[in-house]
């Protein structure tokens, strides 16, 4: 196969530029209140769409395994908080469910 380096550089450029432009051009500018509200709502809207429905398909062979892992994250996260235990725990729970269903 011929080298992929030009492809990689192309991908890098189209990934980097959209990440950079808003930082350079919005910056300190005064923005209307409605726009500010919109930008402030982006994180929540993004998280919702990044998690659902992808999380249900994280283990395509047995979706219930990923769902069990997410269940652990929700329960632990709501009652104890933190991030590391919910993340590692979800992997462990998913692993156990997959293992039990071979």
């Amino acid at each position, binding site marked *: *196969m011929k080298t*992929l380096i*030009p*492809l*990689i550089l*192309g*991908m*890098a450029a*189209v*990934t*980097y530029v*959209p*990440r950079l*432009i*808003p*930082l*350079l051009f919005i*910056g*300190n*500018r005064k923005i209307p209140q*409605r726009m500010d*509200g*919109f*930008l*402030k*709502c*982006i*994180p*929540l*809207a*993004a*998280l*919702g*769409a*990044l*998690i*659902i429905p*992808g*999380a249900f398909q*994280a*283990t395509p*062979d047995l979706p219930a395994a*990923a769902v069990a*892992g*997410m269940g652990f994250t*929700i329960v632990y996260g*709501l009652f104890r*908080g*933190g*991030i*590391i235990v*919910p*993340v590692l725990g*979800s*992997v*462990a729970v*998913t*692993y156990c469910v997959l*293992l039990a269903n*071979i």
Partner: protein
Amino acid sequence: MKQKTGASLKAGFPIFIGYVPAAVAFGILAKGCDITLLECFLFSAVVFAGASQFIALNLLVTGMGPGGIVLTTLLVNFRHFLMSASLSTRLGHLPKRYLFPMAFGITDEVFSVLSFTKGELSKTHVFLVELCAYSAWVGGSVAGFILGGFLPEILSKSMGVALYALLLAILLPEVKASGRALILAISSGVLNTWLVHLDILPKGWTIIVCILIVASIGSFFMTWEKEEELL
């Protein structure tokens, strides 16, 4: 209020934990697609965008040309434009020269962690969080490429949940604190499920449409609530 180095590493560490398995999976897949170690490393080191790298590998295997793959990458990663726009309102105090390297590290997870970091975002904080993510992503990809074959299949499969668990763990304190946050996030997820099911938008654009619609509705309620307070 600025973030101390320890606090920055503590904020970045969960991304590290979430990225290593995902990156290892990328390395394993890359090796399976017959690309070289150098190319695998460069994918992660200069593109640094999880989902689009996996998609690029898939497209390579199906025989798509570089033009199509670059275009797909642009579409898939365009959501970061919105995320950068959202973060920019909190980074405006920094000199422009810092924004160039900073922009490179704005991934979904870095964006999520920074968005919910309280107080003014210092440049050191942003760079340290990004460095945690970057080192895990690049290191994990190379490790996956070299050592991948040794990982039990079930373990690498179960690692697929790590990134979702990370995003979920970032979201939970917000939805616990505010009903509005819960409603926004859930409606975005429901809308995305529907759009994915309809299957009319290119990959990555369902998320963009969700952000545009849900954040617009959210901003409407925010300004409405503010006006209520003023009355």
